[in-house]
Each structure stands twice: as structure tokens, then as C-alpha cells.
């Protein structure tokens, strides 16, 4: 089964191909079957937990998502939270990756090794201390809000946005932080491949560093930013732990948590709503991955030369 077929006889080649079809069919079956239920049930007028061919095919599960306010709200929350987190990652990693690539500080090498180690810190090991850090920040936010605003409903509104626990800001920052190590690594390797000459030429022309960055480096860096952004988006979009830890108000719920909680309402599970929403939730990640695929190998072998 290895590569070129110059010497291989036609018969053995055919046998090998048949075997390959068999294996690939089996693996594809394994990969595809679990999706059948969620897809079929989302078009079923009376879906259940079991896979079955729908008696009535309907699109109402999908159209109901737009009527059912919570589904739309979770989707919007996800888009906003993950969107802002991804933008933060892009900006921070873009600037940071560039700086790391160009700096000549003596601590460059130790710092880069440190970032590799930071990359592999398992998030579940961080939940306790991060929760404590977020609590401290949150106390500060609440104290500020209480000092500035006296109307409770306005205070509530502000704390929704700026709170570190059960607020947008905290979730966005923690999701961004978790994606940063990989993104900054991607950007750093990327800028390593761009020669310094361009910047120096621009500097000689009297451009400021910021101007150089925007006019010359940004266009060059777009493919790198695309890779970093896609990976950050996929990982943050699919993350379950951070929303579980840091959101509770139904108004703030993002898709994973909203789906999970709705699924736990054992006495009232609406499978049509859940499956349709699960499909909607999955699509952006799958689309993003189809773009990100080609960066995958490069990203993970980045910095590894035997």
C-alpha cells in the first residue's frame, strides 16, 4: 500500500485498491453515521431521541429558531462573544507575533519556550485559579458600578456587559486568552518568513512603525492572520468549559450552554428545536475548518525541524 505502482502487478494493485475501498467505506461509515440523526431529526415534524425516517418532513424546526427568541439570542451571543474574542486574538497575536519575531531582547528564546509550555496548559487545570482571579476582578467591577450608578436596573445592565463572572467581558477575555498562545506562535513563525528589508526600506522613507505595520506588513500578514483567526474561531466557538464556568443568566448564554441546558430539561426536551439549533451551531465551525485545513499541517509542525 505504499506509493508508486511501477512494479506492482495489475492484480495485486486491484486487490489493494479494493481493500482501500473497504477500509475507507468502514471509516466513512463510522464518521458519518452519528450525523444522520441530528440532520434527519431537524427536518422531522415529530422528532425523538432515536434515528428514524420522518413521516412529515418540515422546515418549521428551522423557521422556529427565528421565532423562538432564545435560540436566536444564543446564536447572537455566540457570534458577538466569539467574534470579539477572535478580533482581540487577531490584533494581539498580530502585534505580538510581529514583535516577537523582530525583537532582539536577550529573553527572546526563554520567552518563546515559555509560550510553547503555555500552549499545552490544560484549561481544566486552570478553572479554579482563573475563577478566583475573575472573582477578584469582578469585585472591582461591581464596586465601580455601585459607586458610579445608583439605579439598580442600570447597574444590572452595566454588570451584564463588564462583569467577569456572568458578563460579556469576562467570557470574551478568557476565551481570547486561551487561544492566544497558538495564534501568537502562528504569527511569529509567519513573520519570521517575511524579510526585514521591507520594513527597513519603509523606515528609510520616513514611515512610522505603525504606518509600516499597517501599510506594508498587514497586507503581507493576511494569510497568517487568516490561519490564526480560523483556529482561534474554531476552538473558541466549540469551547464548552468557559461558558459553563462563566455564564449563568439565560440572556447571556451562548449556543453550547443554551443547548446543553435545554437538553437537561429532561421533562421538556424539544428535539426539533435542539437538533435544528445544533445543525446551525455546527455549520460555522465546519465551514471554518474547511478553510483552516490547509494551514493545519504547517501550524502544528511550525517550529519543529528534526
Amino acid at each position, binding site marked *: 500500500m505504499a*506509493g508508486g505502482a511501477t512494479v506492482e502487478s495489475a492484480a495485486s494493485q486491484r486487490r489493494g485498491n479494493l481493500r482501500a475501498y473497504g477500509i475507507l467505506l468502514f471509516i466513512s461509515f463510522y464518521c458519518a453515521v452519528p450525523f444522520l440523526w441530528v440532520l434527519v431529526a431537524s427536518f422531522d415534524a415529530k422528532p425523538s431521541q432515536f434515528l428514524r425516517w420522518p413521516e412529515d418532513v418540515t422546515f418549521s424546526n428551522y423557521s422556529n429558531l427565528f421565532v423562538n427568541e432564545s435560540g436566536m439570542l444564543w446564536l447572537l451571543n455566540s457570534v458577538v462573544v466569539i467574534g470579539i474574542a477572535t478580533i482581540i486574538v487577531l490584533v494581539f497575536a498580530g502585534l505580538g507575533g510581529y514583535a516577537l519575531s523582530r525583537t532582539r*531582547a536577550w529573553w527572546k528564546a526563554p520567552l518563546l519556550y515559555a509560550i510553547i509550555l503555555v500552549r499545552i496548559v490544560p484549561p481544566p487545570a486552570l478553572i479554579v*485559579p482563573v475563577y478566583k482571579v475573575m472573582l477578584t476582578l469582578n469585585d472591582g467591577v461591581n464596586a465601580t458600578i455601585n459607586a458610579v450608578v445608583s439605579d439598580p436596573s442600570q447597574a444590572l445592565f452595566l454588570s451584564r456587559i463588564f462583569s467577569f463572572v456572568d458578563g460579556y467581558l469576562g467570557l470574551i477575555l478568557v476565551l481570547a486568552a486561551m487561544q492566544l498562545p497558538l495564534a501568537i506562535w502562528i504569527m511569529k513563525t509567519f513573520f519570521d518568513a517575511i524579510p526585514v528589508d521591507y520594513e527597513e526600506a519603509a523606515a528609510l522613507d520616513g514611515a512610522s512603525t505603525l504606518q509600516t505595520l499597517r501599510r506594508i506588513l498587514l497586507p503581507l500578514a493576511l494569510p497568517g492572520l487568516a490561519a490564526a483567526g480560523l483556529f482561534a474561531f474554531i476552538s473558541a466557538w466549540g469551547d464548552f*468549559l468557559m461558558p459553563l464556568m462563566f455564564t449563568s443568566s439565560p440572556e447571556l448564554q451562548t449556543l453550547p450552554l443554551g443547548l*446543553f441546558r435545554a437538553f437537561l430539561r429532561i421533562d421538556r426536551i424539544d428535539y426539533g428545536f435542539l437538533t435544528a439549533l445544533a445543525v446551525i451551531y455546527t455549520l460555522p465551525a465546519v465551514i471554518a475548518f474547511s478553510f483552516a485545513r490547509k494551514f493545519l499541517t504547517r501550524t502544528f509542525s511550525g517550529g519543529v525541524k528534526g
Partner: protein
Amino acid sequence: MVGMTLSYEARKQLYLRLLMAPALLLMAGLIVFPAFYAIALSLTNEALLGFAARDSSFVGLRNFTRLFTDPLFWNSLKVTLIFVIGSAVIGQFAFGLLSALCLRRPIRFKAIFNSIIVLPNAVPEMVVGFIWISMYATGEYGTLNRIVGWFGVEPQQWLFSFPLMAIIIVNTWRGIAFAMILLTSGLESIPKDVYEAAKVDGATDRQIFFRITLPMLMPTIFLYMFVSTVTTFAIFGLVYTLSRGGPANSTEIIGIYIYNQSFTAFQLGYGAAVAVVSLVISMLIGVFYVRALKVKI
């Protein structure tokens, strides 16, 4: 105007430090500091309930003595090990390598096979749990029960009778694509003429695979093993949505154990102690990797 007296190069170096500051600060604040803070927390009786929630106190190594005598902690280490080996080292790798090798043959429908195999990789953790709960549903109408029914097997309670195997199968399913993509690129980097030469010498397929393909693929395999071990070690949502570590702790991987101790038993100090162990293990893996792969910076 100090800046004026500095050379262009010195100013640029200063400026670069400024540019990396936001990223470094965010990582320091929410990853590095918490990792060290976990050590401090693990030496206290910090809790979310009772008097200790108001003011916790230093308890020395009590959390660690408890941890090393707690059968549930050892159980979670064992479960994690089996989970990582079963899904990342064996399952994903075997299926990924098989797919990569098969897709190199001159066969049709490559693109279709390829996209189907890649599909599970991007699915969010919550959805993974959601659709596999339906796969594993009990009773004769459960999808997996119907499939095994074709072969005359009785309906099973998969998540109850074979819980650890069940989550290994799910995680394998999810990770085939990553292994396949990485190994495909590894296979492509093996020069064609090596094969040609071997064939001229009359080597069999099997010999070619074990003498040439596998050895030359080793760096990629090693890299794959590292990345997949680290990611599998860090898994949480997938197992949480499927089984929450049950039944009877049989799927309580270390991430779930930390969560359960910290946020259902509310013992933050003890949870932090487990987290410290988990951090130490992953750092050891990381250092080993940096050395063994001679990471170039």
C-alpha cells in the same frame, strides 16, 4: 524627549516591547499567573461553602496527603491514561494512518471520503455529546443498537456497560481527521525515489511499509503523538456532556475530576491540588517534547 536621543534601532526595540505587551499581559493574567496561583491555592482550605469561603486558611500539604490517599484521584489518573492511550495513541492514530495510506492509492471518490472523514473534527464539543447520546441511546431503537443488531447482537446500554470504551470511541471518531491530515503531509514529504529504488530491489509492500514508510514517518508520528496527547489530556466538554465522569467514576478523566471536586463538592483548595498535579504532568510532557524534537525557535 528621551526618544530623540535613542537610535532608530533602540527605539524600534522599545516599540516592539510595547507591541507584545497586550498579548503577553493577557496570557500572563489569565494563564501563567493562575497556573502559579493554583500552587498557592492548593495549600489552603479555600472553599465556596462554609466558613472557609469567607476566610480560608493555610493547611500545608493536607490537600496533597488527601489526594495521594484518595482512590478516586488514582482512579481519575488511570481513566485519563486509558482514555489518552485508547483514543489518541491507538484509535485516532490507527484510523488516521489507515485513511492516509488508503487515500494515497489511485482510487475514485477520494474527495468524498476525505470530506466525510474530516467532518467530525470541527464539530463543537456540545454537539458531539448530543449526537453520540442518540447513537448510544438504550433500547432496540438506539442507532448503535440497531447497527449491532444486524450482526445479531442484543441491544446494549452502551454508556452504562462500556462507559470508558464508549467515550474512547467518541474521541477517536473526533480525531481521525487530525491524524490523517498530519500523517498525509508526512507521507508526502517522503521522497518518491526512495520507493522506486526499493521496488527495483524487489522489496514487498510489507517490507516497504516497515522498512521505509514507517521509519521516515517517525518525526511526523512523534509530533502527532505529542499534540494529540496534550489535547486529549485537556479534554473536558466532550466527556462532561456525555457522561459527566460516571457511572461510578468510570469515565472521570482528570479534567472532570478537578471540576467535580471544585464545583460540585466546592473544595477549591483540593481542586487546585489536583490541578497542580495535572499541570506538572503536562509540563513534563512539554519539556520532554521541546528536548526530544529539538524545537527550533
